[in-house]
């Protein structure tokens, strides 16, 4: 069987949300979305106008506040901001209005806030700092008066963070930076914190009160938050729900963002461990095995205090060993300039704990705002945690994805002593290694097996069943089949099989279940036929078991639609498993109600043996040997003319490689070209030839257009490298192959076999 190259879809976290929204819009019609957009643009109108009437004599701090960090984020900010109502009196009241949107609420809010302040600044003759601060200090003190005075002092330092950053960057040009309110707040607290460090307590209390007040002020937001909490509580993705599992995981906990730029951390950790065999892991091992794999999260919390307690000289000092920094993919000048500091710190190398701290400091150098968070007293952190978390999560995401450069080490597998394993060796090795926690897994499985008859009952009552959870559910479903479906008509679909299609599923239903001989024009016709047959004959019953309903081949919209319609038949009982984290996004409301799922969590912890055996794993040697051998074999036995035909087809297809909707060379055109090249003399000959190719799984035919399969095309390239066939020494073809395949995504392995 040919291996299928796995084109992994781009599905990042936010991507999913977008997909989801997109699906929603599709349902309601794209037009509607367009109207919405138009409406939004209108709403933006007045706000944009107000921006134009800015005060020309604004102080620099406000200038700084106006310029967003990146053009993208500005666009995005406005996108969020316009959702909120227009700015009226106090901006803070309106700010939380745009809060409920999970992403970017705070950012939009801030934008609005800044704008309002500006309007006020232009209206009043007083300097805006005072105004702003007076607004900020509304909580603790009376408005204006003393509070204003106290805050004015702090407000004086408003420009400081941006300035000092610019200085530290060492650039000659003054860097203009967007300073978010939170950062300013943090800065005020920090600044004061350093000053009053000797007598800490009063200020911390002050800050606490201050922040608390801020929270209580934004009633709307609190309300919104409460409602959300209610909802979560009611739907119960919260604690009590997972009682039987013994732990609770909220949504934010699952993918909360806490440690942004530690891309290089692993390399450091690895090399550190590798470099210091003396205090190696083995020794730690016996004492406390947990310590080694301990995530830095826990250590970070403890270390953040330590960092603060340390004397100032430790701050901003890069203590990474030189060899590590050398490995940075894109060492920036800023880091290089610090190198003189690093040479000395040898005493820290033997202390892993310190090393981690240092890394924290190092990473904090890159993100100054972050450093502030890390070094602030934990008490305040708790109060602002909720707010920070949300805004950070969003900000960090766009920050991390805005730059293309990533700092990771340059080590490659080729430099490792170990060669890549091939599929067979891997399989053998894994066979040998014992399954961990077999007894516990068995226990889990037994728990699930007791549900079998309940599943049968529910299937018959019109529900369909979907299994989710970590671990292969293949064996479980197989057991279900053996114990429950012995005397019934059932169909097992291995969704993870790389060449499975909906068509093949429908074919096996029509041919093997309904005994129908004949073809259908389209899967929809076929489906219609099946539905008709099942409705006519009420004695027909069919159980369909699908392993991995979310597999690459079945996750398409059309496939899911067809399967959903099939499963909605009262006498078709579907039980399926899903594994991919984004699998539920395949289904919109319509499909979900067709499927009528009952969800069952079946976490088995069993290895995905079958499921992963087909995909080309990252570390497994990708020889493409199967396709290659079949190709060479076929080509060797071909006549010269037949080789020419194949080459013509390959050439044509490679030219159109970039066009994803390339329909293929139509048979007539192909025939013409072959004739012109004196390769065939009748279309019968060509047809026969194509049939032969198809039989050897080199091409497929799509609407009368022959298309070379990707694997074969890939192997063709290898062949051309090897110059295995004399007829292929054509320099032009070789060059063409070369260009296409150097840019091709599936070729990463330079070792030719």
């Amino acid at each position: 069987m040919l291996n299928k190259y796995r084109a992994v879809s781009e599905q990042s976290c936010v991507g999913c949300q977008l997909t989801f929204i997109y699906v929603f819009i599709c349902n309601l019609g794209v037009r509607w979305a367009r109207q919405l957009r138009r409406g939004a643009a209108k709403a933006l109108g007045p706000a944009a106008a107000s921006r134009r009437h800015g005060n020309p004599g604004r102080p620099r701090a406000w200038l700084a506040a106006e310029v967003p960090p990146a053009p993208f984020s500005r666009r995005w900010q406005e996108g969020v901001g316009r959702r909120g109502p227009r700015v009226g009196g106090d901006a803070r009241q309106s700010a939380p209005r745009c809060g409920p949107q999970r992403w970017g609420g705070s950012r939009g809010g801030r934008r609005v806030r800044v704008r309002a302040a500006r309007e006020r600044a232009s209206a009043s003759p007083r300097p805006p700092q005072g105004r702003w601060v007076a607004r900020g200090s509304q909580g603790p003190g009376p408005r204006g008066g003393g509070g204003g005075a106290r805050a004015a002092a702090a407000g004086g330092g408003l420009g400081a963070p941006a300035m000092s950053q610019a200085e530290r960057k060492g650039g000659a040009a003054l860097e203009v930076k967007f300073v978010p309110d939170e950062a300013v707040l943090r800065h005020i607290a920090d600044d004061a914190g350093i000053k009053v460090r000797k007598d800490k307590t009063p200020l911390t209390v002050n800050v606490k009160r201050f922040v608390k007040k801020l929270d209580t002020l934004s009633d709307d937001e609190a309300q919104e938050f409460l409602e959300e909490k209610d909802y979560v509580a009611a739907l119960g993705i919260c604690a009590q729900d997972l009682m039987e599992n013994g732990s609770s995981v909220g949504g934010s906990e699952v993918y909360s963002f806490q440690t942004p730029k530690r891309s290089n951390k692993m390399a450091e950790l690895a090399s550190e461990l590798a470099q210091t065999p003396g205090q190696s892991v083995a020794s730690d091992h016996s004492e406390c095995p947990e310590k080694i794999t301990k995530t830095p999260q826990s250590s970070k919390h403890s270390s953040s205090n330590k960092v603060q307690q340390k004397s100032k000289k430790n701050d901003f000092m890069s203590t990474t060993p030189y060899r590590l920094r050398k490995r940075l993919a894109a060492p920036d000048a800023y880091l290089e300039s610090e190198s003189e500091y690093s040479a000395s710190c040898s005493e820290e190398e033997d202390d892993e704990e310190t090393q981690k701290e240092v890394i924290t400091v190092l990473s904090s150098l890159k993100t100054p705002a972050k450093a502030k968070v890390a070094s602030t007293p934990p008490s305040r952190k708790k109060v602002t945690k909720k707010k920070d978390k949300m805004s950070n999560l969003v900000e960090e995401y766009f920050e991390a994805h805005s730059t293309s450069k990533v700092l990771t080490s340059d080590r490659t597998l080729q430099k490792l002593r170990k060669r890549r394993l091939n599929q067979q060796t891997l399989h053998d090795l894994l066979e040998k290694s014992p399954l961990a926690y077999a007894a516990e897994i068995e226990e889990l499985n037994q728990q699930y097996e007791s549900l079998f008859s309940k599943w049968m009952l529910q299937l018959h009552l019109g529900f369909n069943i979907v299994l989710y959870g970590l671990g292969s559910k293949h064996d479980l479903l197989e057991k279900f089949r053996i114990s429950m479906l012995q005397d019934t008509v059932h169909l097992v679909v291995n969704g993870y099989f790389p060449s499975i299609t909906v068509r093949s599923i429908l074919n096996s239903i029509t041919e093997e279940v309904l005994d129908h001989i004949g073809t259908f024009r389209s899967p929809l016709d076929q489906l219609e036929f099946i539905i008709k047959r099942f409705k006519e004959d009420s004695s027909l019953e069919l159980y369909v078991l699908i392993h991995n309903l979310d597999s690459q081949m079945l996750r398409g919209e059309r496939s899911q639609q067809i399967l959903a319609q099939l499963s909605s038949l009262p006498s078709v009982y579907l039980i399926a498993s899903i594994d991919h984290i984004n699998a539920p996004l395949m289904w919109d409301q319509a499909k979900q109600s067709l499927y009528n799922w009952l969800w069952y969590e079946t976490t088995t912890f069993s290895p995905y043996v079958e499921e992963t055996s087909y995909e080309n794993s990252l570390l497994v040697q990708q020889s493409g040997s199967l396709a290659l051998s079949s190709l060479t074999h076929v080509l060797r036995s071909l006549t010269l003319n037949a080789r020419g035909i194949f080459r013509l087809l390959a050439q044509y297809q490679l030219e159109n490689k970039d066009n994803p909707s390339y329909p293929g060379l139509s048979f007539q055109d192909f025939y013409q070209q072959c004739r012109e090249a004196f390769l065939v003399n009748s279309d019968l000959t060509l047809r026969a030839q194509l049939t032969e190719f198809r039989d050897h799984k080199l091409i497929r035919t799509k609407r009368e257009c022959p298309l070379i399969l990707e694997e074969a095309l890939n192997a063709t390239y290898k062949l051309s490298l090897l110059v295995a066939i004399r007829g292929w020494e054509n320099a032009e073809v070789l060059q063409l192959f070369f260009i296409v395949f150097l840019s091709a995504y599936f070729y990463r392995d330079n070792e030719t076999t």
Partner: protein
Amino acid sequence: MICSNNICVSLSFLADYFREGNSDAEDSELRFATCQSLWKHVKLEAEVSLEDLNKQLFDNLVSFLRRSHSEFQEKTTEWNCQMKSREIPTAALVLGVNVTDHDLTFRSLSEVLQNRVTPYVALLQAKDCPGIKNLMQKLLGQLMNCYVDVDSEEDDYVQTSQNRIRCSMTSLITWYESVTKKTDFETPSKKRTSSRHWQSPPVVVIFKDMESFTTKVLQDFIVISSQHIHELPLVLVFGIATSPMIIHGLLPHSVSSLLCIELFQSLSCKEHLSTIIDKVLLTTQFPLKLSEKVLQVLINIFLYHDFSVQNFIKGFQLCIVEHFYTQPLSVLCCHQEEVKKRINSLSHNQCENIRRLPSFRRYVENQPSEKQIALLTTDGFLKETVQQLLDDLNVYHENYFPVLRCLHVFTSSLPKYPLGKQIRELHCACLENRVWETEEYESFLQLFYAPLFFFFLKTLLELKESRRSKKLTKFEMLRFEVVDYIDSVVRNYLVPADHKTLHEIVYFNTASVLREHLNAAPRVALHTALNNPYCYLKSQALRSDGGSISNKAPDICIVYKLHLECGRLINLVDWLEVRKDASSASSCSHARFIRAVSELELLGFIKPSKQKTDHVARLTWGGC
């Protein structure tokens, strides 16, 4: 109840499944039968009440359709000039965002139309009509099929025509002419058809999801058919989920001016839900009741996820099945007449089950000691008591719902709706705890006290004669009296159900089950399993304190944990090295690492990246 033999067989083996998976197999067959009949009745009731809700809408629509081509009917020359304007009568049917329910609505609509207006109804869906050609094909296919349904003797004619006919408007018109001519001809012999439909009934084309149609297809179809409107009495029905403005958004003026649009608005899905709750839950008609939490879950799924009444009903179905499946005493959850018989035939085991019920234990504890002993030892006495208690429960329900409705009438007229605007909110509040102890109830009483002034204005005027101070006190006394009375009624009859003995028998209250199966969180489950395998694998070696993970954890957990510490790209070599250090560096650890990585890829956490050699890209954001 069961008509066909075939179904009988299937039901009996379903009962087997019902029994097999149960630890408490008591009375399982009876339970299953009760469950099935209850579900059947609930379903019927729901369908009927939903139909009633749509009745008004459908009536309006039918009269519109009748009106639309009356000129065509009369066959006068007048219509010719009328139709010169080429306007196609169009009904814009605004159905709301609950698209999953629309299917059912359209099905009953087309039934109604076929029964009352015209046999020629075609239902079109956007996904079947990517182009005008497909649309015509579908249209012709459906129309001609429905023709077959009306006069089945013409089978052969249609069979041939459907295959041969080119899908064009002309062929549609020829078909229509031939069909109407035939019915004209046959009218004397076939009175039935002529009485139901007119001589030339309109052709109704329903666009189920108008918003999803391609603009071009719609435009083409409208323009083409407007050319032929004088030959073919066509009526369009647009199913709209958003707002009627969408028609003008989708169609340019030149096209929309060819339509003569009339707007029809269906009731909102919330009203549908209220009706269903009213008819199915707030009634003594069905013995099974839902507890507050369960109802809340169902309502939340409705309000926050899909607005689908159908799904709500399906959720209720699951409740029924779960209740009868898990609660062995649910055998007593039946109609009053049957209860007695069933109580008498309870086995000893079932009696023990009753004694184990928490609410019954509470009840027993409050009894005098000799009665306690009798209850715990004598089955006969227990059965008598249970009979009595169930009667009590029934009486409670019979009072509860009318009082609830009364209270709702009062509260819903007050400003700010202190106890909720909808009766379901009030119901939930009453079920949750003693409603008279809540703050909202206090504010209700206060508010209620105020408007009473207007209620008794009439009385006030009657008392005009008497002295001022006297009449005021009298009036005030009256007000206090009314408020006190309402308060006492509430305290008497709106006791939360879980304070009632034996409420477990008729109340389904495991909300977690419902949530788990209807509103699962697969991603959370995956994260829990990867992050804290001890949740599933109860092995002491895996026990760990918060945040960290034991290095004896399954490979995939460790690899996952490590990957969480990385940024956007992960270097495979580093990953491998750290992993090796984390576990013992044996020969097969490399292989196990490979497997764990490819499993993560399968789960969608990473994917191969071409940005850098030997790197994978993370697909999730953040992590702990």
